[in-house]
């Protein structure tokens, strides 16, 4: 992807802290307004080729469609649960595309868009939520670690991994490795998150904390998680924090890229707070009408990450109707294929719950396995007769 022309985010200037145009808007880095107007920023910019600009649109649309299929599959009984990312596409695609191939991602459980951007088969997210496996990937080789359900636990894993990257001497220079950990606003209230900030700071780990502040931890708003927003808290842990308009794919890219470059060159950790909104309930099991109203959803619909980006592409003549139609077709094809693959996922063999717990399952566990296999076989025989 394109390069970023910017000074270091650590350098806080009066200009970079200036208020947004509207008094009601939070203070954040924005390169593209909800109306699709390009804005300049003193510290951040992007410089993509036309092809790359279009590619971001393609990522946004495909991410949204794959995610929508997750919700649909859950409604049709094909998945046990689905945590939709609707509304957060720009935060995920912007940050996901800012990653270099050598970087490692520690996701939470809603990072389908990042997984897509990493070029990984997204089926693993669906097999997880279908209940076919618990993850089932070589997450180290993928440089995209396991989905983490326990809030904020992965922030410490990322801090440790990043310490290891530094120990390996793999930081310093443009080809250095960086680590990024995804978490939400709720995670910032967890002890592990705060410990991870301490560790990353103390050991100067090449780590970016990427907080998707989607405004809610299930039903609880930001006001129940913190008095000081995450990006401002970073300073207390000795690292820069930057808030970015998480519905602006260009700003999300630029700010994340700068933070990753800071990490990979050995300047240490930082925190990016992507200010965004979860348009769907927490998961398919949640009822968001109990804690937020339609007016709030309308407010955020007007900030839709894809509409604003499409408006801008059109205004700049970077893409035309044919291109948008082609992306829609490609997304539909991706979804069709995914849907079929999800439905075709076989149930696991009963032995699978036993075989990966230990390198060499001990004798008592081997005995239990044999018992479970025999019991299953007896059921199958019974059903055949």
């Amino acid at each position, binding site marked *: 992807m394109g390069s970023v022309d910017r000074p270091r985010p650590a350098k806080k200037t009066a200009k970079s802290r200036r208020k947004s145009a509207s008094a009601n808007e939070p203070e954040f880095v924005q390169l593209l307004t909800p109306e699709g107007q390009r804005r300049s920023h003193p510290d951040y910019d992007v410089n993509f080729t036309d092809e790359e600009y279009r590619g971001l649109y393609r990522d946004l649309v495909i991410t949204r469609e794959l995610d929508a299929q997750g919700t649909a599959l859950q409604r049709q009984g094909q998945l046990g649960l689905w945590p939709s990312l609707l509304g957060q596409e720009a935060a995920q695609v912007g940050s996901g595309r800012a990653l270099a191939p050598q970087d490692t991602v520690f996701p939470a459980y809603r990072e389908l868009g990042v997984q897509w951007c990493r070029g990984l088969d997204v089926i693993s997210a669906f097999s997880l939520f279908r209940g076919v496996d618990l993850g089932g990937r070589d997450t180290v080789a993928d440089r995209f670690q396991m989905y983490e359900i*326990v809030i904020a636990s992965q922030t410490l894993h990322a801090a*440790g991994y990043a310490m290891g990257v530094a120990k390996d001497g793999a930081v310093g220079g443009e080809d250095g490795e960086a680590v990024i950990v995804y978490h939400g606003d709720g995670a910032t209230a967890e002890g592990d998150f705060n410990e991870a900030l301490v560790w990353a700071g103390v050991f100067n780990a090449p780590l970016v904390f990427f907080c998707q502040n989607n405004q809610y931890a299930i039903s609880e708003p930001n006001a129940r998680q913190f008095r000081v927003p995450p990006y401002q808290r970073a300073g207390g842990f000795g690292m820069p924090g930057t808030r970015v308009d998480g519905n602006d794919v260009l700003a999300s890219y630029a700010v994340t890229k700068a933070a990753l470059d800071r990490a990979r060159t050995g300047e240490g950790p930082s925190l990016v707070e992507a200010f965004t909104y979860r348009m769907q309930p927490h998961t398919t099991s949640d009822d968001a009408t109990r804690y937020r109203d339609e007016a709030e959803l309308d407010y955020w619909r007007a900030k839709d990450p894809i509409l604003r980006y499409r408006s801008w592409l059109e205004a700049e003549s970077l893409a035309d109707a044919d291109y948008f139609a082609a992306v829609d077709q490609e997304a539909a094809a991706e979804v069709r294929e995914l849907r079929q693959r999800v439905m075709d996922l076989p149930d696991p063999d009963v032995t699978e719950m036993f075989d990966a717990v230990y390198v060499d399952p001990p004798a008592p566990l081997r005995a239990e396995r044999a018992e479970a296999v025999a019991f299953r076989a007896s059921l199958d025989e019974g059903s055949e007769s």
Partner: protein
Amino acid sequence: MATMTMIKALNTGLRHILEEDDKALIMGEDVGRLGGVFRVTDALQKDFGAERVIDTPLSESGIIGTAIGLALRGYRPICEIQFDGFVYPAFDQLVSQLAKIPNRSGGRVRLPVVVRIPYGGGIGAIEHHSESPEAYFAHTAGLKVVTCADPSDAYWMIRQAAASEDPVIFFEPKRRYHAKAEVDTAAASLGLHEARVARTGTTATLIAYGPTVDVALNAAAAAAEEGLELEVVDLRSLSPIDWEPLEASLRKTGRAIVVHEAQGTLGMGSELAARLSERCFYSLEAPVLRVTGYDVPYPASRLEDDYLPNLDRVLDAVDRSLEY
């Protein structure tokens, strides 16, 4: 052969691990400059550097959580939790992460992490410094749990634990830290997960581990003066349990008494009694009995002699067993 304390044996074992595997790391609170509050890691930072023997923030969840990350990166961390009662802030990382991530990956990711925990009472300590939390971890699939009872096992078991591809919780009986014995550093006599018959006998079997092995051996010596030949089995591995020597012993003696410091309810003794009753039912002359800490929080240290299993309580249990 050299005579050394358990602390020195552990220190020597850790030293040899660091020498032989440059991916091995030691991390914990005060393990570096200070050499650990019990000096188990004495001089290791001086000799191997602060990059490999890491003084960490005072952050137990952080110790285990970052050790997981380091293991994902190819390192082999050996963590120290300073005292038994301080392990609970790390509980999520141990139980939901360290124990489960390899299984979550379908076996594609392994976490060779060792967590050393000095445990048990008998040292007149303040609250939270005398606990025996082993059953929480033995209850958790995905962890292996072991404990040493003497310097030789301390040396070999820490080395074997560090070589394990599965995570190992390594309990060190702190009241045995200063006991001296011979250590043969040339060859291990047992595997990490094997039980050991520490004394042979025919009257009844005492099953002990960690700090109570010595209690059981002393009880057996006292009983011998009364003509009772007690067999003592040192469990060594709490997860998995090495059932075969236990079953063989029970088939011989017909009687078993489990001795541990941890509270009795749902402690290791509960599992041992249940399984041995299932497996050796027709050999048993008496129910499997337990001599354990009481079902109370570890008491103020002036009461710990009443709380801890001791020679008299063990011999009383032997008498009760023989009365059946």
